[in-house]
């Protein structure tokens, strides 16, 4: 579904990605972890060609995004949902209009069908009552849920989540991750989730990929990831959470 091969990206003299390679199979939910500034969000943006790599290739649905025409890219992107770190909701629109916007602009659906679809998405994320509110009137958790509804409204096959729990308190962050997990299980989406919520995210993903010094140093099931003797992984995991807690949460999954 997604294949990344030897991806390089620099900004000035700073090499952020130095030969990243990994695959994501259909239906897989992968957590992408790594230190702050390691290039996780950058990698997501390269996957959808919001930025161009210096070197290397990315295939999504079997198409090389770097050589895709604008039309092809538009089609690829229409099959991908992207949940931005801050939500990226349009300030001037209500929750309803934010979710309806991609349908109004990119589909030939009538307003009646749009309402039915938007209402269903808002119900899915538990925000049916907030449809007339503006983004400024929403809490952090609500913003993320609206962003998820907007990302899902065109029935994407892949969803990319860029640090969706940043800035949320532990309870809300847990609720948001549970929602993502429920949506993934219900819709059988392929997803990549950039997050620091270790070990919590190990409960909801099938694989964990770790980005370190510009490369993917491991891509394993949560159980095997936690059990890895690799000192880099252990150091990172121990820094984020206790190793035992990590193992407890990851072991029962595989």
């Amino acid at each position: 579904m997604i294949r990344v091969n030897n991806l390089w990206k620099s900004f000035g003299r700073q090499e952020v990605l130095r030969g990243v390679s990994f695959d994501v199979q259909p239906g897989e939910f992968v957590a992408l972890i790594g230190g702050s500034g390691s290039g996780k969000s950058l990698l997501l943006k390269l996957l959808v060609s919001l930025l161009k790599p210096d070197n290397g290739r990315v295939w999504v649905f079997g198409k090389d995004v770097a050589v895709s025409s604008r039309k092809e890219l538009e089609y690829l992107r229409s099959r991908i949902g992207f949940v931005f770190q801050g939500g990226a909701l349009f300030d001037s629109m209500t929750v309803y209009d934010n979710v309806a916007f991609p349908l109004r602009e990119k589909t030939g659906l009538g307003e009646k069908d749009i309402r039915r679809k938007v209402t269903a998405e808002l119900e899915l994320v538990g925000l049916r009552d907030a449809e007339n509110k503006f983004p400024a009137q929403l809490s952090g958790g609500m913003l993320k849920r609206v962003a998820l509804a907007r990302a899902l409204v065109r029935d994407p096959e892949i969803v990319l989540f860029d640090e969706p729990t940043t800035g949320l308190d532990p309870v809300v962050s847990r609720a948001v991750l549970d929602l993502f997990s429920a949506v993934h299980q219900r819709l059988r989406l392929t997803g990549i989730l950039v997050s620091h919520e270790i070990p919590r995210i190990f409960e909801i993903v099938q694989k964990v990929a770790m980005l370190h010094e510009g490369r993917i140093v491991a891509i394993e099931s949560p159980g095997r990831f936690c059990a890895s003797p690799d000192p880099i992984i252990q150091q990172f995991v121990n820094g984020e959470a206790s190793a035992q807690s990590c193992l407890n949460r990851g072991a029962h999954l595989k």
Partner: protein
Amino acid sequence: MFLGQTLLHSLTPPFKGERVLRQTWFIGWKSMLVIALTGIFTGMVVALQGFPTLRRVGSEALLGPMVSLSLIRELGPVLTALMVTGRAGSAIAAEIGIMRTSEQIDALELMGLNPLRYVVVPNVLASLLALPVLTVVFDVIGILGGYLVGVRLLGLNGGTYFGEMSNYVEMKDILGGIYKALTFGLLIGWVCCYKGYHSRFGAEGVSAATTQAVVSAAVLILVADYFVTSVVF
């Protein structure tokens, strides 16, 4: 290139008429009060300064033409453009800068929508539409301001004020002012959108983009004023 793409998107469908109208309301209608105030006091001060000078050479009857030509050819378009830059141009740059920094522009792109068409084109077209109208408002109110000072305060005959004005002001002067307004409208829309669109991330980036937008647009307006004057008049 940015301007070229913007103009291309403004000429090709789908057209975003509703957004253009909304921005025209924001740039045009919401600037009306500040333009009216600036216009009336500019007309008043031109009359106040010009009347004694004209009387010294026995030509106070030419106060009307002096006020109107100063406003229509020069002060109206330039001061209107500078005021709109300060009021609306800064807001446009800041809004687009915030859209950039909060990834709303990336979101548009990922939806398969062209951000230039959705964010930039409406502002540039609205600025192009609003500037000539605001300039005419500035000129008319400025001339009335000159009337208040010249006729009501300093005792010039009202018929002389307007009569001489109609003898001296030609269509070429009015059109020249409109051409200037159109040029400045394009400059404001282009520069302010460009600076906002290429804003660096964070509050500091948006703040810098806004400052640069206002300063660059103001300087470019004055530079363009010289060249348009040399071509049109």
